[in-house]
């Protein structure tokens, strides 16, 4: 209990206290606090348990780099897991709970795990999970490791807008460099978008303060904002630019209070990255104890929120930038000792004890810091602040493809100019200090005249500091994933010396903080251990997102019914009124069955009625691709396995479209309406693909001026009347049907509008597909529905249609075929032998694979032992001898026409096995069955004529 609230410092609203709970303990903060500042000021130290060893962990930083303070936040009864305490604003009534701790962070029952640390080295999981018996470990490890809890009640509304935007100049980061760039660009009349994570622009000025061009920094910020807006630009606060994508696309997440968050997709003409830098930690024994914090973060929390890190503070540094931090803390009332690794440095600030040429080697304490060991001497302290230098935030530059160079002077990896279409300014490019940031920002935007000038800019000397393997004790490199310097050493000894291997082997940098505070140290340690330079050791790849972004924000409104919107039938309301139950079939919402009660019973009843009298079903999703022009016959001959140029007008023919691999891509009927006009009835789920393949052939192989394609699937409604009384129903409906044979088609006129009637059957019974333009579908539907009663027919859903077609052995491509099925496997071998001309997929049918014995062929499967249908997907196996899969069941139903189960299957040499007994293996049981022809019902086809 060491952090405290300064009576006056900070910009929180002291008039508006906000009550909250942390692990059940009631605490109070103020409006304007972050979760982190409120917890810090309350004196709460242990905020969670570490990922692997369950060590106590406390607040480290001030933003997205925070590795420890990750909390589950409950508000209005709904819990959001894994919230970074440093970036979330406090609200009255929030309940916070620590993650990876049971029951809570202070009393975690797995804390003893830390004693076992020598048995849990890097690569522990890889080593353990390769041995037999790892399954016994797994549930235990899953329980002990991990982060927050998923709340099933947390189902946020799909209301985050996704906004596509374009901007002339995008500036990422509204600190001094970004502000200077924005001012310069705005003055040149450019529309600038200035984007920053923080609630207000200013960046480090917000806690470091300063005077710019003779005025307080706030005046500078206000003036820049005004100039940006006046030039037509925009300032987005609380907005994280989290991803750089191809061709200048950037993704940003804007948090809004009282409104849904926004997912921005910004196309930027030019981009300036001014994302600043992140303070590095220092490496000493127990550098993960609660109470060890980033010095910069301590200043941030003090100045912005009046949250003081501790009362007796040791600040260990090697840079000048820590001196103002010490000064501010001392002025706030803390007892501050600054230990500088360098023999010389700036003058001691007032009230600060400075120890020079001193090195911090350990922190001690149980659950939090009790003392700091400096050059072998224990100093009592409740807080240890550290500054190990600064790491430029180059993530977005690298996401955009940029490369980095090692810079000895800046002691950092800095962007290599020209490797990404992004300019980098300020600390992000390794130029630390206020005047450098302002000058670089100004220059990056092509600023005219003098750059903004700060007053009394502090010097920015930094002494490079590195983890020291010679130092005793456990030195943490990655706090969030619990990786120590010893783990890096182990990885080096075991040969994982590439940084990409180091990362995967030890999990260093793989946590949700993306190694902001750890990657550099891991890299530097590996370089030292392998006697290589940092550039020789390399860096890992940076990928989006920069910080974790809620999936609800990225998904936006594209969820539920809008995720992948279904195609709807024009007659859907009428079907619903008739009691239809709807389901998705190949992207279309279609009636599955009509009526109430058990679905499979209804489907069987519907199928029986269709067999006995007549059924009507909505076949509108059936593809209707018009192929028009003198070049149509040759195009269709090429695109189809079955020749279509020999089809007479007024006739239809069944065929297949193959992929060039010879595999069946689609099947269906082609109608020829005139010499130069065909309609391809592609399967409802394949229309787009068939059209694309036809277009490919049309444009790349034939003369596209001689044939055009037009997909009119959605323009027409098709109702199919099927059953022995189909013709009676149409007569009753007073629809004039020209005399036509099976596979005939005619265009007629009915009540002044066009109608097309095709005698094409997907059920094996006499069937008429009646199509009218969608706007006339009510009339057709009502006439058929009225006539239905007179002939004892009923509406049937897709489930009944599936039964009817399976009884006949009619396939569904993709269900009764797979990625190996060729047409001759389906009994269509004659064309392969006969056709001399070229067609799609032809050559593949004659490859050794296409010609080999033992191909899986379509057959039927009959059972005699009871009423239960076979399990679809079940493997077919020999009844005698060693068990192996000979194929599998593709469709299985109870047939009302035959009053027994029927099935279709793909079976090795299936046709030669017809009549043989075979096993059907399902859930450990083998059921005896008999191989049969695919067509189980009316094999002579008598019923096609009614």
């Amino acid at each position: 209990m060491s952090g405290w609230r300064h009576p006056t410092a900070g910009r929180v609203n002291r008039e508006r206290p906000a009550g909250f709970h942390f692990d059940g303990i009631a605490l109070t903060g103020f409006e304007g606090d972050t979760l982190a500042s409120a917890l810090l000021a309350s004196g709460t130290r242990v905020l969670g348990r570490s990922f692997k060893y369950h060590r106590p962990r406390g607040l480290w930083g001030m933003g997205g780099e925070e590795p420890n303070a990750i909390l589950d936040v409950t508000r209005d009864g709904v819990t959001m897991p894994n919230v970074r305490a440093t970036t979330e604003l406090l609200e009255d009534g929030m309940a916070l709970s620590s993650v990876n701790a049971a029951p809570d962070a202070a009393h975690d029952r797995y804390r003893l795990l830390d004693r076992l640390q020598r048995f849990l080295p890097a690569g522990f999981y890889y080593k353990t999970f390769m041995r037999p018996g790892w399954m016994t470990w797994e549930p235990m490890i899953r329980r002990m490791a991990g982060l927050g809890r998923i709340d099933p009640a947390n189902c946020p509304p799909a209301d985050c807008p996704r906004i596509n935007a374009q901007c002339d100049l995008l500036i990422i980061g509204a600190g001094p460099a970004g502000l200077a760039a924005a001012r310069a660009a705005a003055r040149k009349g450019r529309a600038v978008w200035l984007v920053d994570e923080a609630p207000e622009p200013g960046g480090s000025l917000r806690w470091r303060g300063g005077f710019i061009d003779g005025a307080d920094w706030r005046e500078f910020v206000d003036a820049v904002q005004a100039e940006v807006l006046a030039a037509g630009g925009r300032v987005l606060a609380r907005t994280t630019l989290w991803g750089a994508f191809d061709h200048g696309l950037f993704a940003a997440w804007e948090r809004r209070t009282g409104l849904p968050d926004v997912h921005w997709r910004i196309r930027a003409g030019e981009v300036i990255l001014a994302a600043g830098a992140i303070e590095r930690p220092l490496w000493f024994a127990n550098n993960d104890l609660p109470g060890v914090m980033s010095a910069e973060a301590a200043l941030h929390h003090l100045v912005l929120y009046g949250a003081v890190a501790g009362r007796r503070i040791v600040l260990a540094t090697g840079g000048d930038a820590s001196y103002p931090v010490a000064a501010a803390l001392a002025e706030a009332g803390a007892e501050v000792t600054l230990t500088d690794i360098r023999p010389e440095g700036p003058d001691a600030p007032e009230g600060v004890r400075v120890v020079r040429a001193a090195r911090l080697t350990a922190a001690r304490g149980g659950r939090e810091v009790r003392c700091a060991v400096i050059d072998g001497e224990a100093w009592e302290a409740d807080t240890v602040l550290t500054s190990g230098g600064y790491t430029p935030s180059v993530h977005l530059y690298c996401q955009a493809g940029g490369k980095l160079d090692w810079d000895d002077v800046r002691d950092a990896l800095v962007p290599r100019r020209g490797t990404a279409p992004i300019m980098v300014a300020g600390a992000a490019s390794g130029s630390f200090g206020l005047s450098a940031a302002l000058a670089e920002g100004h220059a990056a935007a092509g600023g005219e005249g003098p750059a903004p000038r700060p007053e009394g800019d502090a010097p920015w000397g930094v002494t490079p500091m590195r983890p020291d393997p010679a130092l005793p004790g456990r030195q943490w490199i990655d706090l969030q994933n619990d990786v120590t310097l010893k783990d890096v050493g182990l990885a080096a000894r075991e040969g994982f010396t590439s940084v990409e291997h180091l990362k995967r082997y030890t999990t260093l940098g793989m946590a949700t903080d993306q190694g902001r505070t750890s990657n550099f140290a891991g890299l530097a340690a590996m370089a030292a251990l392998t006697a290589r330079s940092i550039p020789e050791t390399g860096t890992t790849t940076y990928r989006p997102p920069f910080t974790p972004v809620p999936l609800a924000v990225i998904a936006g409104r594209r969820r539920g019914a809008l995720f992948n919107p279904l195609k709807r039938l024009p007659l859907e309301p009428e079907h619903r009124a008739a009691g239809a139950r709807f389901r998705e079939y190949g992207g279309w919402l279609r009636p599955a069955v009509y009526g109430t009660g058990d679905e499979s019973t209804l489907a069987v009843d519907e199928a029986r009625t269709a067999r006995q009298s007549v059924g009507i079903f909505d076949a509108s999703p059936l593809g209707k691709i018009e192929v028009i022009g003198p070049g149509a016959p040759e195009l269709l001959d090429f695109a189809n396995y079955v020749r279509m140029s020999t089809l007479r007008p007024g006739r239809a023919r069944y065929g297949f479209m193959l992929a060039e691999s010879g595999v069946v891509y689609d099947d269906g009927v082609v109608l020829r309406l005139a010499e130069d006009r065909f309609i391809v009835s592609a399967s409802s789920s394949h229309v787009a693909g068939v059209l694309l393949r036809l277009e490919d052939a049309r444009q790349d192989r034939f003369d596209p001026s001689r044939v055009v394609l037009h997909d009119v699937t959605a323009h027409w409604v098709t109702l199919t009347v099927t059953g022995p009384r189909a013709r009676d129903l149409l007569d009753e409906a007073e629809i004039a049907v020209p005399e036509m044979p099976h596979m005939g088609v005619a265009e007629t006129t009915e009540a002044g509008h066009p109608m097309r009637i095709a005698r094409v059957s997907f059920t094996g019974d006499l069937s008429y597909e009646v199509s009218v333009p969608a706007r006339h579908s009510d009339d057709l539907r009502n006439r058929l529905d009225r006539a239905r009663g007179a002939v004892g027919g009923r509406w049937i859903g897709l489930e009944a249609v599936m039964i009817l077609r399976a009884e006949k052995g009619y396939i569904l491509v993709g269900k009764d075929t797979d990625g190996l099925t060729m047409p001759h496997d389906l009994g269509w071998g004659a064309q392969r032998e006969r056709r001399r001309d070229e067609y799609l997929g032809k050559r593949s049918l004659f490859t050794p694979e296409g010609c080999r014995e033992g191909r899986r062929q379509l057959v039927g499967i009959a059972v005699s032992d009871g009423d239960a249908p076979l399990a679809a997907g079940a493997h077919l196996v020999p009844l005698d001898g060693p068990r192996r899969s000979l194929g599998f069941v593709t469709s299985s139903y109870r047939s009302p026409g035959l009053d027994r189960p029927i099935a279709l299957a793909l079976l090795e040499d299936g046709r030669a096995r017809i009549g043989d007994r075979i096993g059907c293996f399902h859930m450990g049981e083998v059921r005896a069955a008999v191989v049969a022809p695919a067509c189980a019902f009316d094999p002579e086809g008598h019923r096609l004529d009614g």
Partner: protein
Amino acid sequence: MQRFQCPFCGLRDETEFHFATEAGKSRPEPAEEVTDAEWAAYLHLNDALKGQAREVWVHLTCGEYFLMTRDTLTREVSGSEALPGRAS
């Protein structure tokens, strides 16, 4: 998210496009005279060039196939033209 230039419609998001094939691959014919190896090469062997590549793409929205020249490494698109004989 890349943006490609359809020669008929202009600059559009990559989601509107589909890769078709590497440019310049001609279909070996007639089937009777094509060896298994030649056919397999046509079906499966691609240059998959690193750097400048010429490819056939289709703009799904308008249905037109076209030739695109792009750098597969930098993703820079340097050319987009209708198939030979097609006016854009």
